[in-house]
């Protein structure tokens, strides 16, 4: 039986804008098993990014429970939550946010230098960072500044950074949203490769081509999960076009 990594129960998020109540998430419940690669899809304003941010503890939930490795991160104090983000999860943004005063390698190893649970020397951390960069095919950019590399290389560097502390789960918000098609393919290939190696990934995307590479897709409308589709593990030689067609048919059934 697959081990559950993330269990979300009755998660609600309400915004008050101009004295108007906006229920961005309404009693959302789901679970993510170890080794899964889940895509959250939905139309604009459906609450998919809110779900990702709330489930990852980046944003406070109005109510509900988010259990990650035995901790309810929706109720954790800030200090512990920061520790969970550091040690147990990785995050990839649509925009490649990195610290401009550090070079690519330093940006990647930065979270590792802060993580206390794993006793690693600076040398070991650097070697690990370089190994990840090698795996992602960007080792030649290690000493570069962040504005000396392409968007695709930068996003792969962000993936390396999210992986540096061996997280239990990686959250990704439109990881290919700011990339061209070829860079997007490269980045997705890297994420799939990580997933095949056992890393659990949960991402938001509006691109069916990207979502087709995930093992499961959740469809969200008006803050509620309307359905989910299991596509199975995307093997290295899987036929992506078939998976994409299957997914598109399902999405049409869901009314997208």
């Amino acid at each position: 039986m697959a081990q559950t990594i993330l269990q979300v129960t009755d998660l609600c998020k309400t915004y008050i804008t101009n004295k108007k109540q906006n229920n961005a998430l309404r009693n959302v419940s789901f679970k993510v098993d170890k080794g899964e690669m889940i895509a959250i899809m939905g139309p604009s304003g459906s609450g998919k990014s809110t779900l990702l941010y709330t489930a990852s503890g980046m944003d406070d939930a109005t109510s509900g429970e988010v259990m990650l490795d035995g901790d309810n991160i929706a109720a954790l104090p800030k200090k512990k939550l920061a520790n969970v983000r550091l040690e147990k999860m990785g995050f990839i943004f649509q925009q490649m946010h990195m610290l401009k005063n550090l070079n690519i390698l330093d940006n990647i190893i930065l979270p590792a230098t802060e993580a206390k649970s794993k006793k690693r020397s600076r040398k070991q951390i650097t070697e690990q960072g370089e190994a990840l960069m090698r795996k992602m095919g960007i080792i030649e950019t290690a000493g570069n500044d962040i504005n000396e590399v392409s968007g695709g290389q930068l996003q792969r560097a962000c993936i390396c950074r999210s992986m540096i502390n061996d997280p239990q789960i990686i959250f990704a918000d439109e990881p290919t949203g700011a990339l061209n098609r070829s860079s997007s393919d490269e980045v997705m290939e890297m994420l799939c490769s990580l997933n095949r190696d056992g890393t659990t990934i949960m991402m938001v995307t509006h691109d069916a081509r990207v979502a087709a590479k995930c093992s499961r897709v959740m469809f969200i409308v008006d803050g509620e999960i309307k359905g989910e589709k299991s596509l199975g593990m995307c093997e290295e030689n899987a036929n992506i076009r078939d998976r994409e067609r299957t997914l598109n048919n399902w999405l049409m059934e869901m009314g997208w």
Partner: protein
Amino acid sequence: MFFHILKKDLKRGRTMNTIILLFIIISVMFISGSVNSMISVTSSLDNYFENAGIPEVMCATYNRTETQTVEKVLENDMDRISKIEYEPMWYMDHEDITFADGKETEFKSTIDVMPISGTKLSYFDENKNKITEVKKGEVLVANKFENQGGIKVGDTLKFKLGKVEKEFKVAGKFYDAAMGSALMGNGRMIMNDEDAEPFMNEAEKKGVSGKFYFISTDSADDIIDTLNESDLSFAFCGKREFIKSSYIFDMIIALLLLVVSAILIIVALIVLRFTISFTISSEFREIGVMKAIGLGNLKIRSQYLVKYLAISAVGAVIGTALSFPFGNLLTDISSNSVMVENEGSVFTNIICAIAVIAVIMLFAFICTRKANKLSPVDAIRNGQTGERFKRKGFLHLSKSRLGTTTFMAANDVMSAPKRFLIIIVVFALTILPIQFLDICADTLNNKQMLSVLGCVPSDVAFSDNDNSYQYTTDGSGRQMLIDKYKKMEQTLADNGIPARVFCEQFISCKQEFNGKTAKALSLQGVNNKASEHKITKGSAPQNKDEIAIQPNTANDLGGAEIGDTITVTIGDKKYDLIISGFYEAMTNMGQGIRFHEDLDINYNFSNGTFGGQIQFTDDPSDKEIDDRIEKIKDLFPDLTDIKTGAEQAQDITSVGPVFDTLKFFFLILSAAIVIMVAVLMERSMVIKETSEIATMKAIGFKDSKIIKLHTKRFIITAVISAVISGLLAKPLSILVATPIFSFMGVNQGITYSMNTLRVAIIYPVTIMALMAVSVWLTASYTKRITAQQTSSIE
């Protein structure tokens, strides 16, 4: 549409706009206040003398030796004199004016007292109003009595002159232009005519009455020469310029105030430049968007220029309003001896405010010019990741052994050196004046200073109430004093204290050489040798017909040189003495000669002494000296005012309390500037780095780590600054103080002393700690930034 965008911009970026508004307010306040204060202080002494009616020549006579009046002496010069006036007065020994309980005041010089109706100069009260009356039973005291004598308004003083004795209430203080400076030994008091009468009569009988003459002339030098050639005995005789130069310490303080004002202006301009370039650089994304939708460069720039014009106009109005009390505060602390009137006008403040607006517009124009060169894409991309293209840091986390936050703080400082250079400069500019003041105060309050005050440095100084030697007409006073000191040395030795006891006597005399005359106050050591004093050129007097001379006096005598023989007249006795060397001392503004210890001088012409001195010959520790002072008090109950040599130097220069006040003021001002600049800069940085802070939070950085990082950046810059200012403090102080001491007649021989603990550690660390706390508290705002705000541009 243009104004709509502007309105939206003002609202959207309100935090940054508020910060820039605050900086503008501070800048206008500093610049307007400082310029006003500069105008007031630079003209203060001239205005003060003008208002007080100080003439070209002044002299104070003793009636007891007066055989002729000043008018008679100047009989042949009357055509060159437009007016002669005098104030009647009498001299009182400081021991004859005590507090009501009989306790002596701390004022240790002669006190001149005069009746109000006799005053010819203008004297001003604390509110700078001319004094016209003194009530019966009351006395007004010159300002310096507070610092030098510990006499405060409301105290009761007991006056005793011969058989006349009366108590007076100190009803107020007054500005005394003629004798008010710390370097003019005597102090003056004014009382009601009726109260003064019995004292005047008694003074006449005792021969301690006198007159203070005020001579208006265009030929001051000739008049001084004539007076010097006369047989009149003067308590004081000098030109207006001489009196002016006696305000050297007040002018030092005024000069320091100018330095502060200049520093404030520099700080204001630096900070303005930072804020404007910082604000505009964070607007590049906006500029890119406007370019992308087709707005022209002029249109884009004019939007920012109008925005800054609007903000600076509001800031200028508020800043101008605040500049008045700030300017007055600066002016008020400049001096309690010199009456400084605020000469600046509203127009000065308005001109300064307009100048600040012009500078802001210039900065804004220069900063927005950068946007011209950028394409829309460049502007947007730069707005996304910062205003520059290349990282400038050379540190690498992977190769560093530093902790993460320390590394990042150091790396940030290295990566944006210009931004942090501003903090370094501001910190150094605010800490250096405090260090300078401390070094000056320490130097002036050190016992080594006694060597340039005409004395041999000693461990202990004391006042000797036994003045009988001064009035022994047979000339035996000097021997009596030597015998007394020898006896004291024996008593000390018997009690296990090996020591030498001596003093320096001031002698009134006239010097002549090649037809030129001078009346410099001269010195002779009692129970010590002339060779113990520092000689800057030639050698110390080896025989009793040799003297050492101050360069200023030699110049007054037409350029007398070593080997020349000058004629010195003391009373009715003339001596032909050979100049064997030059020495320098601040006493009497660098005027004087030093006699050989064996020259037989009638101490009837002694003008007193700084007091007796005791030098221990076994080099005891400071603690041992303190213990011995207690023992000396027991052994010699007649001696009063026993103190250390350093305290003696402090008493003679009389500027210790003023320097302490100034140091305190500077410390507060520096702290306020550093706190303001640090808070506003940190707040600006937090706004600009919101996206990075959010990214750090997203990857798991705790709030406390981010606050630490921000605080450490400022601490690193402050440490760099503290090291630089610590290294520069002494050489800069020497550079600045040397011309001041030189003006007072001492070019060599000043031993600068620096309390390393205070100068290099306590002051910088205090300011640094305040800055760190301010930044820490300001950086706490980062707690409000969430990991989601990675794309924030405010």
